[in-house]
């Protein structure tokens, strides 16, 4: 009996051992099969998730810390189709709260593209509206029978950042905008897009919740502080808008710059765009150059170029302020006759009279006296025909024809001297003229004052682009320009402040001929003359009430100069000189 029991036990043990062995063999076979390899591969594919962490885009401030471009949360509202209980109720709630079409929303929910389990019914929804809808969903859930889901179940809310421009259209030409794909267009947003955007970080994150992972450090994009003074910008835009109405001009530009370091303090243009509605770009602008004409739209500046011609003549020693010449009303250059703006002779004139009366014949005389080599060498050194390097997107270089170019003719030496046949942007003329206001040194205009990254501020130093004229020439010419304004009782004069400047009235070519009735009216000026702290450029396109820069652009200069001295705390000359004397 005992032996029989032992045999049965042995047989049972053997059978169970065999079964265990079979299980182990089968397990081993399954684990090493081709299918197992496929499953392992699939599992490893899902073991980690590649996630991209996007930094928050840097903000943009004006020089006094006013926010010009920031970030805010908006919501994407969608429907989880698997959990959507009542599509009609969801469509009704969304259409009522967000003002979207009921039928369209219902159609999206009921007929989604194949394979989708989630559909977006609205995006970029303002936080206030989204929160209201969320509260409605919560209330509906609370009123649902116990244990039942509310009718708005399945409505999902996802927040994401969106660029916000608190000042709306103010300085829109300087700031530019960010589209919904996260790309910067125009102005600072485009020029410093990479800096503002920061560097996204990609990390492999384990999907196994037991595996902790290190959160990557994603530094925010660089915050930028601009040289722009918000209040001066607002004043410039208001003055420009009023000037367009007063003089019935088609469009206009006002730029205010510190000639000592090239800091742009204000840059007003028309038209402007509400940056929070950047999708209206195509409605407002016909081409990209219209977005910021101050840097993108070259035009024939006319007589404001005369200050550069005079600077070249003085610096090269061709003339001195007292040099006189007999103005006969016309001069022959390159086989063509050049006349004064009024086609009249002005008799004996010195160089101040030449500037004061804006005599074309005088300028053509000076350029021919200097010769093409000297004249164009100075114009080149002043930066005409070259990019200024201003840190705003879309800058245009303009055009300065020089001897040797296929379209340069000898007459151009005469006409270029008074601003005809040469094209330049307002910012180019300002950069060139900065040498006269800044002791002979040209400054590079710029809009970036500082960068803030990781809590540290890096100031941007002023950059100089050469010294085309001597300090003596610069001071002499500034004085001559101030005297010429004072002598004619210019409308550009600012009570209490001595300013230097020059008007420009350039006829606009129409069908290949200059039209006497359509002009670009300009004025460039700076002050105080003994220690310039501001330089202002005014350009009015096609003014109707008067075609002359002296009657349109000059008084606009005076208006903006008055606002500038108030907002920059520049005391009148007599008080300032007393303070300096103390």
């Amino acid at each position, binding site marked *: 009996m005992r032996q029989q029991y032992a045999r049965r036990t042995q047989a049972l043990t053997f059978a169970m051992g065999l079964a265990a062995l079979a299980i182990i063999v089968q397990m081993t076979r399954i684990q090493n099969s081709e299918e197992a390899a496929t499953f392992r591969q699939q599992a490893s594919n899902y073991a980690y998730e590649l996630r991209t962490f996007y930094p928050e885009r840097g903000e943009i401030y004006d020089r006094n810390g006013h926010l010009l471009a920031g970030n*805010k949360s908006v919501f994407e509202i969608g429907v989880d189709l698997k959990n959507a209980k009542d599509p009609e109720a969801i469509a009704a709630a969304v259409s009522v709260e967000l003002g979207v079409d009921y039928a369209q929303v219902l159609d999206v929910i009921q007929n989604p593209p194949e394979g989708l389990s989630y559909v977006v019914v609205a995006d970029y929804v303002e936080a206030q509206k989204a929160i209201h809808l969320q509260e409605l969903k919560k209330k509906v859930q609370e009123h649902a029978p116990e244990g039942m889901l509310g009718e708005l179940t399945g409505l999902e809310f996802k927040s994401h950042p969106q660029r916000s421009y608190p000042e709306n259209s103010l300085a829109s030409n300087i700031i530019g905008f960010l589209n919904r794909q996260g790309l910067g267009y125009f102005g600072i947003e485009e020029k410093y897009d990479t800096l503002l955007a920061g560097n996204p970080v990609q990390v492999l994150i384990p999907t196994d919740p037991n595996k902790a992972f290190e959160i990557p450090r994603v530094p925010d994009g660089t915050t930028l502080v601009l040289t722009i003074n918000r209040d001066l910008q607002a004043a410039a835009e208001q003055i420009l808008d009023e000037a367009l109405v007063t003089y019935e001009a088609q469009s206009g530009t006002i730029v205010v710059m510190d000639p000592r370091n090239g800091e742009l303090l204000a840059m007003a243009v028309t038209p402007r765009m509400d940056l929070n509605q950047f999708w209206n770009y195509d409605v407002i602008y016909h081409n990209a150059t219209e977005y910021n004409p101050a840097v993108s739209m070259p035009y024939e500046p006319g007589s404001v170029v005369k200050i550069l011609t005079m600077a070249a003549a003085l610096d090269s020693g061709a003339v001195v302020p007292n040099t006189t010449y007999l103005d006969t009303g016309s001069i022959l250059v390159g086989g063509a006759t050049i006349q004064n703006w009024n086609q009249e002779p002005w008799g004996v004139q010195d160089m101040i009279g030449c500037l004061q009366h804006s005599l074309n014949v005088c300028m053509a005389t000076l350029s021919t006296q200097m010769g093409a080599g000297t004249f164009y060498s100075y114009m080149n050194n002043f930066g005409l025909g070259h990019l200024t390097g201003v840190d705003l997107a879309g800058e245009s270089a303009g055009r300065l024809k020089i001897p040797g170019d296929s379209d340069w003719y000898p007459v151009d030496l005469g006409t270029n001297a008074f601003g005809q046949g040469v094209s330049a942007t307002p910012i180019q003329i300002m950069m060139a003229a900065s040498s006269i206001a800044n002791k002979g040194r040209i400054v590079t205009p710029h809009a970036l004052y500082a960068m803030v990254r990781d809590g540290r501020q890096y100031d941007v130093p002023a950059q100089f682009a050469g010294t085309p004229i001597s300090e003596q020439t610069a001071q002499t010419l500034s004085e001559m320009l101030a005297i010429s304004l004072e002598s004619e009782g210019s409308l550009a004069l600012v009570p209490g402040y001595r300013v230097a400047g020059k008007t420009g009235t350039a006829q606009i070519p129409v069908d290949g001929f200059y039209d006497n009735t359509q002009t670009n009216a300009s004025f460039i000026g700076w002050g105080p003359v003994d220690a310039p702290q501001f330089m202002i450029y005014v350009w009015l396109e096609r003014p109707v009430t008067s075609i002359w820069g002296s009657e349109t652009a000059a008084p606009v200069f005076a208006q903006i100069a008055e606002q500038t001295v108030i907002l920059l705390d520049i005391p009148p000359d007599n008080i300032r000189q007393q303070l300096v004397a103390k």
Partner: protein
Amino acid sequence: MNIQNVTHLVHAYKIAPWRVNRQLVGTALLAVVALAMVATLYLDVTSQAAIAGREIQDLTASITINQQVSGDLQTQLATLTSASVMKQRALELGFRPMESGQAEYLVVAGYSVIEPEILSSVPLPQLSALSIPPEYNESLLDWVDERISSSSRGMQ
């Protein structure tokens, strides 16, 4: 009872079948208890790691939400103090724009011209997590392996 009888009794006690079985059962139970302890320890460590990971995720989400709220409030504040709004409010309060002739300039000892505002000169605290210590993400086996490796390195 002589000594020989006593020795026989002791020997018989030692080789008694019920005693051998009890020793086997005791050994097996000891092994089971040891395994249970190891499993408990492993479960405890992994659950702590999972909880810590979850807390980190929650804190990260809180940081993101707080940053968004901060950005929203900053933008709202900027909108409420924008140039056009401030001008409108000033006009409504009876203020009017100043003209250049109305300004009075006084010499104030020690006053210096206002320089553009420096937004921040102090390094901000690091918002990211510091390096996670191994206690939070290594398993018991990893820990044992590390101990063995470090011991063998010590012996070398």
